[in-house]
C-alpha cells in the first residue's frame, strides 16, 4: 500500500508543471463557462466534460507513460544506486566498465588533439544549416576515429561478471550452466513465457474496424495490449506513437528545433563517432542506406538532449563526466559528456534505422526513438539484474537453449562455438539489421506490447533451434557463424510459435 501511494505521489510530482498540467487547468477553467456546470456538482461536471472532450484520456495516457519509467521501488533510506541496482558486484562492474569507456574516449581525444566540444565558427554554422537535410553527402575524414567500443568488447565484460559469493565448481555436469554467463539471475523459462499470453494470432480484416477505433480512442493502454498481436503495417506508426505517448505538439517540435540549434552551434567529438557508425553500419545496409540523413538528424540531436538524463533515475549506469576547462583556464569542472549521458558504440545507429520506415518527420522520428531508448534500448548496454537487462537476456538465452537442446549446446561448446558468442550481436541490437525490416517491426511490436525485451532472447533461441540440424554438423566457430550469418529470410512469428508451443509440451 505504501509503495502505491509513494508511486502516486511521484507521478503527480512529475506531471505537475508539465505542459499537460497547464493545458488541463486551462481546459477546466474553460469548462466553467459552460451552461451545464452547476455549482453543487462542480467537480463531477467538470470531470465529465473533460472526459467527453478526450482530456481525461490524455491524462490517463500520461500517467500510463509515467508508470513505465518509474524508478524501481526501494527502501526510503537506501541510496539511489542501491535502488537502481541491488547487486553490489553488478554495480561495481558497471562502474569499472564506464571508467574504461570514458578513458578510451578521453585518450582518443588527446591522441587526435580534438576537443570534446567546440563552438563552430559562424561560417561553419551557416554551412551546416544549409546542409541539414543532406548531411550524408559530407565526407569528413573519419579514418582516425574508432568506435569507443563494440559489442565484442562488451560481451567480455559480461562474461567476466562473477558473484563473489558464489562458489562455482569447475566440473561440468548436467546441472551446471554450460554457457558464458556465470551469474545466477532469475529468468523466465519457457513454461513461464508461455503462460504469459504469447499466443500469436494473425490480424484479420475482421479486426480492421477495431484498429480504427483504437486510433480514434487514443488509448495508450489499449494500443499496447493490441500490439501484442502485431500491428498492421498501415497503422503501426500511429499505434507505436500512441503506446509511447509521443505527440507532435508544438512543444515537441520546439524542443527538437532547440536541439538542432545546439547541433549547429557546437561540434562534439562524439558527432564523429556517430558519423562513423552510420557510415559503417546503416549506410551499408541495403534497406537503410536511404535513411542516412535522417539518422544524423536524430542522433546528433539525441547527443545533446539533456532530457535523456532523466532515465538515469532508473538506469543503473551513471552518466559519464568529463572535465572541461573553465573560461579562465584555472578551474576544471566536471560536466556530463556527451550532454545526454550516452556514449554511442558501434551499431548504435541501428536502433534508429528501422524507425525511419515509420516516421519521416524528423521531430516525430526523434520523439519516438528517444522514448524507445529510455524505455528499452538502454537496457541492452548497461549491466544490471533487471529481467530485460542484457545480462538477464543473455542468461535466459543460454538457459533456454541448454534446457531444450542440450545436445546442440554441448556440441557447440565442444567445438569452441559458444552460442552466446554468435547470438550476442543480435541481442544487443534487438535484431536490427539482422532480420528483414518487416519481420523486425513485428518483433518490436511485441517488445512494446509486452513491455519487455525477453522476446529478443526467446527469438535468439528459436533461431538456433530452427537451424539446429545444420549446426550439429559444423566443426568450428567459423562454420557455426556461417550457418547463422543470414537471418533475412526468417519469419519471426512462426519461429516463435514453433519454439514456444512445440517445445513446451
Amino acid at each position: 500500500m505504501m509503495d502505491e501511494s509513494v508511486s502516486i505521489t511521484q507521478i503527480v510530482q512529475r506531471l505537475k508543471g508539465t505542459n499537460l498540467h497547464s493545458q488541463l487547468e486551462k481546459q477546466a477553467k474553460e469548462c466553467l463557462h459552460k451552461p451545464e456546470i452547476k455549482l453543487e456538482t462542480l467537480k463531477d461536471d467538470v470531470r465529465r466534460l473533460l472526459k467527453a472532450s478526450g482530456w481525461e484520456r490524455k491524462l490517463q495516457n500520461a500517467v500510463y507513460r509515467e508508470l513505465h519509467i518509474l524508478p524501481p521501488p526501494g527502501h526510503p533510506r537506501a541510496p539511489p544506486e542501491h535502488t537502481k541496482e541491488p547487486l553490489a558486484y553488478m554495480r561495481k562492474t558497471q562502474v569499472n566498465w564506464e571508467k574504461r569507456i570514458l578513458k578510451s574516449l578521453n585518450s582518443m581525444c588527446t591522441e587526435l588533439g580534438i576537443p570534446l566540444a567546440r563552438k563552430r565558427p559562424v561560417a561553419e554554422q551557416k554551412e551546416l544549416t544549409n546542409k541539414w537535410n543532406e548531411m550524408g553527402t559530407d565526407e569528413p575524414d573519419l579514418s582516425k576515429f574508432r568506435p569507443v567500443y563494440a559489442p565484442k568488447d562488451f560481451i567480455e565484460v559480461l562474461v567476466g561478471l562473477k558473484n563473489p559469493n558464489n562458489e562455482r565448481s569447475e566440473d561440468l555436469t548436467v546441472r551446471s550452466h554450460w554457457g558464458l554467463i556465470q551469474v545466477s539471475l532469475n529468468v523466465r523459462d519457457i513454461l513461464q513465457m508461455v503462460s504469459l499470453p504469447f499466443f500469436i494470432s494473425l490480424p484479420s480484416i475482421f479486426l480492421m474496424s477495431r484498429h480504427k477505433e483504437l486510433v480514434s480512442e487514443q488509448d495508450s493502454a489499449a494500443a499496447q495490449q493490441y500490439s501484442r498481436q502485431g500491428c498492421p503495417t498501415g497503422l503501426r506508426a500511429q499505434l507505436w506513437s500512441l503506446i509511447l505517448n509521443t505527440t507532435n505538439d508544438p512543444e515537441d517540435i520546439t524542443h527538437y528545433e532547440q536541439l538542432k540549434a545546439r547541433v549547429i552551434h557546437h561540434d562534439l567529438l562524439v558527432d564523429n563517432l556517430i558519423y562513423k557508425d552510420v557510415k559503417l553500419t546503416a549506410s551499408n545496409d541495403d534497406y537503410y542506406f536511404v535513411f542516412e540523413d535522417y539518422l544524423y538528424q536524430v542522433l546528433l540531436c539525441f547527443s545533446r538532449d539533456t532530457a535523456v538524463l532523466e532515465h538515469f533515475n532508473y538506469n543503473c549506469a551513471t552518466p559519464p563526466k568529463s572535465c572541461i576547462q573553465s573560461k579562465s583556464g584555472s578551474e576544471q569542472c566536471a560536466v556530463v559528456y556527451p550532454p545526454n549521458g550516452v556514449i554511442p558504440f558501434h551499431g548504435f545507429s541501428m536502433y534508429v534505422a528501422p524507425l525511419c520506415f515509420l516516421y519521416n518527420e524528423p521531430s516525430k522520428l526523434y520523439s519516438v526513438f528517444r522514448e524507445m531508448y529510455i524505455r528499452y534500448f538502454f537496457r541492452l548496454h548497461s549491466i544490471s539484474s533487471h529481467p530485460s537487462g542484457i545480462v538477464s537476456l543473455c542468461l535466459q538465452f543460454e538457459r533456454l537453449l541448454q534446457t531444450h537442446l542440450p545436445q546442440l549446446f554441448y556440441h557447440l561448446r565442444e567445438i569452441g562455438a559458444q552460442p552466446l558468442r554468435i547470438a550476442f550481436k543480435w541481442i544487443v541490437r534487438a535484431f536490427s539489421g539482422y532480420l528483414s525490416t518487416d519481420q523486425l517491426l513485428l518483433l518490436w511490436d511485441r517488445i512494446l506490447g509486452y513491455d519487455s525485451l525477453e522476446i529478443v532472447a526467446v527469438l535468439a533461441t528459436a533461431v538456433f533451434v530452427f537451424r539446429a540440424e545444420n549446426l550439429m554438423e559444423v566443426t568450428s566457430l567459423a562454420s557455426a557463424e556461417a550457418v547463422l550469418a543470414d537471418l533475412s529470410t526468417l519469419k519471426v512469428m512462426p519461429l516463435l510459435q514453433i519454439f514456444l508451443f512445440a517445445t513446451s509440451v
Partner: protein
Amino acid sequence: MFPVWCNKLTLKQQTAGPKGAYSSQKKKEGVSAVLLRCVSLCFMLASCIHVSPCSDGDWDFNWCDVGWLRENFDHSYMEEHVRICHFRNHYELTRKNLMVKNLKRYRKTLEREAGRLEASKCDFFPCTFVLPSEYHIFVEEFKRSPGSTWIMKPVARSQGKGIFLFRKLKDIIDWKKDGSRSEEQKEEAQVESYVAQRYIENPYLIAGRKFDLRVYVLVTSYIPLKAWLYRDGFARFSNTRFSLSSIDDQYVHLTNVAVQKTSPDYDPEKGCKWQMQQLRQYLTAKHGFETVQTLFKEIDNIFIRSLLSVQKTIINDKHCFELYGYDILLDQDLKPWLIEVNASPSLTASSQEDYELKYRLLEDTLHIVDMEGRLTGKEKRVGGFDLMWNDGPVYTDVGLETLGSSCLVANTHLGCVNDRQKQLQQLLKPFPGQKRT
C-alpha cells in the same frame, strides 16, 4: 544476352549458330528428358553436358536477342511446339516513339467509343512528342508551359544512354538542324529519332531520393491477350539526393543502374535497389493500406492498357512469348507514370539478391512457357506469376464474403509475398501424359 553473373556458363562455342539456342533431340519423346534439364536448371547452367549447340534452325526453344530476331525470324520455319522469346514486331511497344504513337491512337479510339472518362484512364504517360516529325506541335506545347523541364530520349537506346534534360529551346535548336531526316533512315543504326517528354518534376521521394520501379510482365499471346504479372520487382534509387536545380547532373535524374554505376558516389556494395515488397511495406506504413491498394490497381491499369493499345498491331504468333520490363515512376501524389517498356530487360545481377530474383523470374517464365506440357492452361498462378489478363480481367478465387459478393478482387499481387516454391510444388505434381488444352 546471357546472364552475365553466371561464370559457369561456358556454352560451347557457337558455330555460326544463333546465340542462346538450345537444341534437343528432334523426337518428341526425347524432348522431356533433355528439356527437363534445361528448364529446371535454367539456361544459365545449361552449359553442362546434356545440351549441345546446334546449327541454324535446329532448336525447340530460343532465347534470342532482338538483333537475331530481326535477321532471322522471317526466314525460320518453326514447328508447332517451338517457342521463341520475342514477338516479331515487339518494338511497337518497346520503341519509345512507337509506344507513344500507339498509346495516343488507342486513347483517341477509346474516347470516341467510350467517352472522356474511360479515355482518361490512359493518362499515365507524360506528354510526349516524337521528333523530328512532331517538332512543330512540340514547340507549341513547349511554349505554352514556359519554365517546365523536358527530357529528350533517343528512341531505341537503353540503359540511359543519350538522354538529356532541357528547359530552353535553344538547347535543342542545334539538334533540329540535323533532324530533318527521312522516315526510311530511321531503321538504320546510326540515325536516331528522339522523343521529347514532359519531365516529371515532382517525383515521389524516399529520404530525398528519386526512384523508379521495374516490374515484369509476361505476355504469352496477344490475340487473345494473355498477360502475367510477376510479384517480385524492384525500386531503383538514384544515388544522390533529388533537386531540380541541377538538371545537368544526369546522375540525379536517371535511375537506371547502368548510369548509376558510373556515378562517382557509386558503391557497388551499397545496392541502390529495394525489393518491391520492401517498397510496398514502406508505402503502406506511410500512407495506409487502402491508398497503396489503389496505387497498385492503377499500376495494373498501366500494363493492361499499354498492352491493349498494341494488341491489334503486334503480329500474334503462337510460338512467341515475351517478358517485358516495365519502368514506372511515382509522383508525389502517388500517381504512377509509364516511362518505358523494355523487350529485353536486363538479366545481369547487381547483387546476390538480384541474382536470385532474376533466376526465379526466368525459371517461372519457363514454367509458363511450359515446353513439357505440364500445365492445364487454366492456371491463374504459376510460381511468382499471377494471371493478370486473359482476354478480360482476371479475379482471384478467394471471395471475401465480408466485403460483399459484389467486390471482385483483381488477381495481381505486385509486391506481395511470393511463396512460389510451395505453389510450384502443388502445381507441378507429376501427372504423366497430361496434355495442355
